[in-house]
């Protein structure tokens, strides 16, 4: 903590932290010293010189943005001479500046010009020479335009790109009066710029402006600005949506609020167009004679109620099942699981979390008692060592990655473990590139090295690990054979690197682990994470701040949907359904008979589809999920969906799955609803309505309540989403202290057990959530993958995500900004293999596995090792999951999306 000191600005006494930035102290105290190049997120630049002040004891004028405050400092911020100087500086800047203003952006420069009367030409001293300088315009980027004639060379964009986003894409070209900002080799669209738009948000003059909706935006006609939460990944960025004529026309990051503090990625800033897509579902549709026809809500809901009731009566409760949605709010999901449990009378409820982090959660629940991330997103910047494994964090969680990069530039260590090159490798101290599916061996090898070098934390093991050193000895014995040489043989990672990584992780004062789909989506998924947790436990890299394990969540509300009970085995707040005491409590809360709530664990996502295939599940209610692209082995899913007697799908668009539905219900998008999401660091954050839903589309929760009513059940008498959340807080003790009024400005991280609790930024500081409070070691052997290459299928295919698309791209591909960056499927193959198999970069190729086949474009790339392939899975025209298999991890039931043996041939049409 820095010391509080006293300073005086223009005679006003001000208390400030010693060493704080003078300009910021002045601004915080309501003294508006003019400035342009300064931004509180960035290091001071001192380029514009507008913030000049006089400091007693110092000669001349001093730029306040470059001064740190000291005790007793006396500052003059405004007098005639200073103001005259500022006016002169502005006038000078103006001489090289194109001051045309089109009313589409916030122009700080223009505001100061008006303030000093320089908007009037007669008040200017210098002639304008901007036209003679032949400044260029770079209009090549899909999302922004740079006009050098409006640039005052303040460095904000460059520093935003460097210091905030950690990308370093921008620089100056030329020098002196002709200098200007460049990306790449002076051509924005061919540069490394990924379109996050941080520079646009920071630009004070309109030199950098966004492209989408520029011709529509008129700030004077602005309707409102609405703060809400981003609908893409699980970072939970706070957005400020600008609404004009009932339409979203701009999205900015909200400064000063966690988790993102103004930062956004390209999807958060430019991915909102889908909300207003003409392809939105606007009316209920009923399938008649194989064709969908428009229907009234009453008609559709009556049919649904009749059919679901018929199935329940004829085949029993467990013949019905539901998929809830990681894209919907907690309120929607809470009522969905309540519907499945109360109205269907079954626990057959699951959703896509089963397909992504089920194994992570299973291993974490068993070892440490909680499946959520232990730390906060901003901790990624301050932990001393970050171990990123099977997690392409720059592309999948771009804003969390900005914190990772901030850490890198502050001297923190990064270890990347991934069979495929990811952009984070550029920032990493060590890149471990194991063969696909050899993670357990690699981690056991690292544990072996840690033990051999005596880098364990015996004190932590004694105090925090179940059975202490005895359990450790068992692990030690198991990893004995994973010598560096043996581990290298299995994984192909050089033994020196294994030892170096083990040392770096274990020796760090604090270390965090970011694990992802690469580790979880294998038949050994749970074992992989057990192994990871073993390494974390014996080194004591958990149970303190900035240490732990964090599986960043893939979707906006994948955390929340499970938190509120969308799981076949738990109720809201992670209480097992088999816990009768809780079931009684819930029955009372829901005003239903205890006996009406099934105590039998339900089926998981893939099991539900298998049961449909076996004709045991007859009716399904799917809210905002698209199994015809997300499920493994899609040919199997297709057959299963065809066998259902009745399928209801509630969504915002037609998807690859809606053709199989009997009734399709149009729902509201994130921008049209009130509610909450829970992000990756357990933060309960508000979602707010910005625009009206199109046509007859309705809020998901209202549809659920209505179907229940038509089936003769009341889910509750809710007037607002806030009332639903209050019930969630009663059902889930981890959220008991949270209500809308408390999260108006910034979200709260659960557990938050009561109204006076401020939330929990780090888990497990004192104990684990296991029955005895101790962490459990689960030593696991490396088992070679069941899926192996053969003569017929010589490659192992890996799949994953890319920055510009999200999930099944139902939303992301309906944004021109995003499709301009990426819109075509491809498969990556090592250049050596391309030659070996007589193929050429760019070829159309057919990929075939035991399960199916697809056609895509070949890209030669050393991002993948020989014998391995990689494909993004977002593209429905080349659906990777036609190839994947339905083999499950026995513990978590997650499917093996990451490893599919296949062959590649040149495609001949």
């Amino acid at each position, binding site marked *: 903590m820095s010391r509080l000191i006293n300073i005086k600005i223009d005679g006003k006494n001000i208390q400030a932290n010693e060493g704080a930035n003078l300009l910021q102290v002045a601004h915080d105290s309501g003294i508006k010293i003019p400035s342009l190049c300064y931004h509180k997120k960035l290091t001071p630049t001192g380029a514009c010189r507008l913030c000049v002040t006089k400091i007693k004891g110092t000669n001349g004028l001093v730029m306040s943005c470059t001064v740190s405050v000291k005790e007793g400092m006396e500052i003059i911020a405004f007098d005639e001479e200073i103001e005259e100087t500022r006016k002169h500086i502005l006038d000078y800047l103006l001489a090289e500046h194109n001051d045309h203003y089109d009313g589409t952006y916030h122009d700080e420069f223009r505001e100061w010009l008006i303030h000093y009367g320089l908007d009037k030409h007669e008040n200017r001293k210098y002639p304008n020479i901007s036209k003679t300088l032949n400044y260029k315009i770079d209009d090549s980027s899909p999302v922004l335009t740079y006009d050098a004639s409006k640039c005052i060379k303040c460095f904000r964009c460059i520093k935003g790109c460097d210091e905030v986003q950690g990308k*370093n894409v921008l*620089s100056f*070209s*030329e020098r002196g009066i002709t200098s200007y900002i460049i990306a790449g*080799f002076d051509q924005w669209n061919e540069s490394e710029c990924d379109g996050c738009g941080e520079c646009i948000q920071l630009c004070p003059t309109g030199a950098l402006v966004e492209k989408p909706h520029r011709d529509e935006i008129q700030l004077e006609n602005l309707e409102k600005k609405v703060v809400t939460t981003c609908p893409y990944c699980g970072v939970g960025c706070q957005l400020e949506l600008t609404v004009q004529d009932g339409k979203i026309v701009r999205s900015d990051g909200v400064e000063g609020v966690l988790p993102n503090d103004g930062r956004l990625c390209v999807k958060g800033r430019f991915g909102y167009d889908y909300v207003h897509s003409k392809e939105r579902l606007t009316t209920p549709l009923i399938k008649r004679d194989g064709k969908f026809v428009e229907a009234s809500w009453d008609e559709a809901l009556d049919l649904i109620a009749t059919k679901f009731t018929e199935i329940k009566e004829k085949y029993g409760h467990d013949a019905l099942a539901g998929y809830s949605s990681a894209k919907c709010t907690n309120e929607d999901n809470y009522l969905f699981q309540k519907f499945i449990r109360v109205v269907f009378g079954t626990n057959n409820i699951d959703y896509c979390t089963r397909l992504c982090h089920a194994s992570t959660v299973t291993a974490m629940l068993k070892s440490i008692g909680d499946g959520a991330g232990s730390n906060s997103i901003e901790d990624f910047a301050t932990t001393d060592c970050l171990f990123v494994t099977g997690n392409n964090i720059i592309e999948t969680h771009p804003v969390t990655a900005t914190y990772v990069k901030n850490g890198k530039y502050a001297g923190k260590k990064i270890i990347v473990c991934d069979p495929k090159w990811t952009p984070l490798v*550029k920032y990493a101290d060590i890149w471990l590139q194991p063969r696909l599916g050899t993670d357990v061996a690699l981690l056991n090898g690292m544990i072996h090295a840690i033990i051999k070098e005596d880098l364990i934390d015996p004190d932590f093991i004694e105090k925090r690990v179940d059975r202490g050193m005895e359990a450790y000895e068992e692990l030690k014995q198991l990893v004995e054979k994973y010598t560096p040489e043996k581990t290298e043989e299995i994984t192909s990672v050089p033994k020196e690197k294994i030892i170096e990584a083990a040392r770096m992780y274990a020796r760090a004062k604090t270390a965090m682990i970011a694990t992802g789909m690469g580790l979880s989506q294998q038949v050994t998924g749970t074992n992989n994470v057990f192994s990871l947790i073993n390494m974390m436990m014996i080194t004591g890299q958990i149970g303190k701040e900035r240490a732990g394990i964090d599986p960043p969540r893939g979707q906006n509300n994948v955390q929340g949907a499970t938190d509120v009970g969308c799981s076949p085995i738990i109720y809201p707040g992670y209480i097992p359904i088999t816990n009768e005491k809780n079931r009684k409590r819930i029955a009372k809360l829901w005003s239903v008979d205890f006996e009406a709530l099934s105590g039998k664990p339900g089926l998981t996502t893939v099991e539900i589809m298998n049961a449909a295939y076996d004709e045991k599940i007859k009716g399904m209610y799917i809210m905002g999920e698209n199994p015809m692209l997300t499920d493994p082995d899609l040919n199997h899913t297709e057959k299963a969906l065809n066998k259902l007697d009745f399928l209801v799908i509630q969504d915002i668009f037609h998807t690859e799955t809606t053709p199989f539905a009997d009734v399709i219900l149009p729902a509201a998008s994130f921008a049209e609803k009130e509610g909450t999401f829970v992000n990756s660091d357990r933060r309960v954050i508000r979602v707010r309505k910005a625009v009206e839903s199109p046509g007859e589309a309705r809020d998901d929760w209202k549809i659920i309540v209505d179907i229940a009513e038509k089936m003769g059940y009341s889910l509750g008498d809710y007037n607002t989403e806030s009332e639903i959340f209050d019930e969630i807080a009663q059902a889930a003790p981890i959220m008991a202290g949270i209500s809308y009024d408390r999260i108006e400005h910034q979200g709260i991280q659960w557990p938050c057990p009561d109204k006076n609790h401020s939330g929990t930024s780090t888990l497990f500081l004192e104990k684990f959530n296991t029955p005895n409070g101790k962490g459990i070691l689960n030593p696991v052997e490396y088992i070679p993958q069941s899926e192996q290459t053969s003569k017929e299928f010589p490659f192992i295919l890996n799949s994953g995500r890319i920055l510009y698309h999200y999930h099944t791209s139902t939303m992301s591909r309906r944004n021109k900004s995003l499709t301009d960056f990426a819109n075509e499927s491809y498969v990556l193959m090592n250049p050596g293999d391309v030659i070996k198999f007589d193929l050429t970069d760019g070829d159309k190729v057919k990929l075939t596995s035991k399960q199916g086949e697809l056609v895509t474009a070949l890209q030669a790339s050393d991002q993948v090792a020989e014998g391995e392939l990689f494909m993004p899975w977002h593209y429905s025209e080349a659906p990777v999951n036609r190839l994947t298999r339905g083999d499950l991890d026995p513990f978590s039931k997650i499917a093996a999306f990451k490893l599919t043996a296949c062959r590649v041939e040149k495609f001949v049409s």
Partner: protein
Amino acid sequence: MERSEVLKQFKPDHENMLNILHALQNNNSQNYLSEEDLKIAASYLNTTYSHIYGVATYYTMFSLKPRGKYIIRVCNSPVCNMENSTKVIEEIKKNLSIEVGETTDDMRFTLELSECLGKCEEAPGMMINEDVVGNLDNVDFKSIFDNYN
């Protein structure tokens, strides 16, 4: 020399950026930094394109356009200017049929201007690659240029 061979002479540290760019330019048969040169420098230094480009455009000793085998740099600093370097420039332009910044069709000569060469006692002066040529008041440029093939 292969570009990778050129790079091997330097450690991949940012402090070597200027040396690397000079070495790549000298290695380029057309006396300039091609996009390939810039890309390989960025990759070797694990930095972004704009950082390399920014440096390459800041310093006048780097060129991003192909240049002749010989670069003529006529000093245009005050002393040479007072000794009529303007006339020298005009004569060279006429002799080679190119403007300042241009290259002869046969890719032999590129004409550039330079700050002080430190040879004021021989003003007006110029450099042809590494050679300094002074006292250019009344010389036969053709015979000088004929020495450079």
